[in-house]
């Protein structure tokens, strides 16, 4: 079996394969629903309704997409330079830590100053925690897949420690949770009474900025060169280690914004379950988008929509709610195959 590149696929082809992926996912999910003893016929309808069938559903989908856009961008930036950052989860929590450390009254500033300050501080924290693995990679040749992965555990335990200690909410009755951030530190909701908040807007803006960086700037060029051939990049005078450092800072900072936005926009405080694996899902989001920053927005909304829709479907169809994750996983795997098939033809022999 071999793959052959297709000459510039037509729009119909480009669209038909992802569509087929979604249909395949629905069919597979329907089978599971059938096995669970419920009617599979309405699965599609229920998923669509749950993901975007009402203003509420749509807002929920976008709310969930928000942190995924940030972590997806973080991964896209890093992977472009072949910096295998599996630690967006840790960076996200660092963002959360800083947001509550400074946002619970330590800085009595008006909102329009405080929020940018919090964002910058959060980014700095996330950047710093990824800088460690980046330095270890460039100076000592330590594999960053492993160090960033291990840091996820360490940072989560660190959060747990802070929530038992200095960041513990004195009014929290002993629960491992922080105080709420002050009103000035909160991102307003986009629509009154809905959960969607300005973090989403910031995420879109971040995607645009990252797009400009990767496509238009010297740094974007350098990152790509380093990603494709570090030795060659070094030869032509690109400061490879410095580029990796900058990439790490940008990537860690973006992931940290996810933590900032979840705390400041959605939860109000920091808990141990701030993220149900957004850092890992970010990898999926970024790769579905083929590392394109604007694509990240679309793929984050897609992944969030599948989850929210399938979760609602599980309740409506009365099947175990774990089917939502099954569906996310299936759609992810079928989708990457579909993307491949839009660009390559499979030749047997």
């Amino acid at each position: 079996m071999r793959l052959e590149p297709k000459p510039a696929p037509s729009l119909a082809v480009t669209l038909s394969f992802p569509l087929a992926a979604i249909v395949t996912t629905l069919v597979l999910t329907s089978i599971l629903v059938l096995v669970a003893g419920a009617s599979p016929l309405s699965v599609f309808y229920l998923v669509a309704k749950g993901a975007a069938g009402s203003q509420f559903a749509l807002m929920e989908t976008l709310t969930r997409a928000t942190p995924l856009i940030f972590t997806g961008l973080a991964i896209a930036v890093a992977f472009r330079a072949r910096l295998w950052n599996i630690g967006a989860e840790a960076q996200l929590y660092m963002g959360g830590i800083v947001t509550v450390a400074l946002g619970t009254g330590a800085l009595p500033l008006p909102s329009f100053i405080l929020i940018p300050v919090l964002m910058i501080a959060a980014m700095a924290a996330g950047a710093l925690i990824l800088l460690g693995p980046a330095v270890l990679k460039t100076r000592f040749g330590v594999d960053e897949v492993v160090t960033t992965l291990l840091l996820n555990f360490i940072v989560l335990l660190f959060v747990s420690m802070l929530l038992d200690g200095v960041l513990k909410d004195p009014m929290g009755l002993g629960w491992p949770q922080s105080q709420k951030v002050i009103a000035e530190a909160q991102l307003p909701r986009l629509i009154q009474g809905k959960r969607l908040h300005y973090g989403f807007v910031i995420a879109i803006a971040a995607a645009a900025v990252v797009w400009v960086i990767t496509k238009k700037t010297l740094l974007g060029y350098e990152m790509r060169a380093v990603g494709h051939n570090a030795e060659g990049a070094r030869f032509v005078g690109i400061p490879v280690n410095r580029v990796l450092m900058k990439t790490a800072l940008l990537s860690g900072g973006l992931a940290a914004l996810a933590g900032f936005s979840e705390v400041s926009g959605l939860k109000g405080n920091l808990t141990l379950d701030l993220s149900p694996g957004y850092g890992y899902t970010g990898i999926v989001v970024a790769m579905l988008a083929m590392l394109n920053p604007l694509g990240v927005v679309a793929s984050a909304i897609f992944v969030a929509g599948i989850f929210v829709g399938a979760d609602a479907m599980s309740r409506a169809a009365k099947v175990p709610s774990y089917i939502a994750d099954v569906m996310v996983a299936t759609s992810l795997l079928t989708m990457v195959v579909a993307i491949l098939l839009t660009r390559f033809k499979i030749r047997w022999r």
Partner: protein
Amino acid sequence: AEPIKVAAVFTVPVEQQWVSRIHKAANAAKDRGEIEYVYSENTANNDYERVMREYCEAGHKLILGEVFGVEDAARAVARDYPDVAFLMGSSFKPDPDLPNFSVFDNYIQDASYLSGLVAGALTKSKNIGMVGGYPIPEVNRLMNAFMAGVKEVAPDTRFQVAFIGSWFDPPKAKETAFAQIDGGADLLYAERFGVSDAAKEKKVLAIGNVIDTQADYPDTVAASALWHFEPTLDKAIAEVKAGTFKADDYGVYSFMKNGGCSLAPLGTFEGKVPGEIKAKIAEKEKAIKDGSFTVAVDDSEPKSS
């Protein structure tokens, strides 16, 4: 009458001890035909509010759950659905401005205290191991009451306290228990799944918590402090039915005097617990029920001694 539509939103699987008691009570009410019952388990706090809203939209009249990490969001939902009754596990107090939102918690310190009396009598090495998930009030409270019970009988007992940083890692809990046995413990307070298994393997004793596991460990689990959610739930169902549901603290329905907790029958250990202790248990139980003795509610983190 029409059964009441009840929905529960749990942040952990229904096997988890704490939630299993709520689930059991709800299933019992369902079997009695009083309610229709659906639930979502293992719901992340991130999704909690959405799931609540979906249930409200779907026409459920009573929502059960545990909102320890999502207090504000849950109350916001309650505000948006004034016709739905909410009975939520929470460490906070009810708010009269939010008349449809009541709270409960597992105040079973009474039973834990009694189980401590048993433990104090049975430990020979005067060294007790305790393995917890996280040091939160719901856990600390029971551990402290248990320790108070032990000290009542055996004041010079040492305690080894460990938290494994997870609600769900029985192998880890088991390893931790092994370590405590290595450290001299001959009796374990089994706050987590896994601890009794270690006790069984190493032939030491265990005290159960929230649920009764003696059937699985007949030679190991000497006593258990049981939580009964039925009084709490039945009260709420009655209020909803009567249309009189209001903001209230249902915590008291977990108290022994209200039948919310009990010391499990000693069962296989009936003959092994000294008579004087049994008498003491009976005496304390009576005092608790008639209000002449109250077990202190102490939510601070227990430490090894």
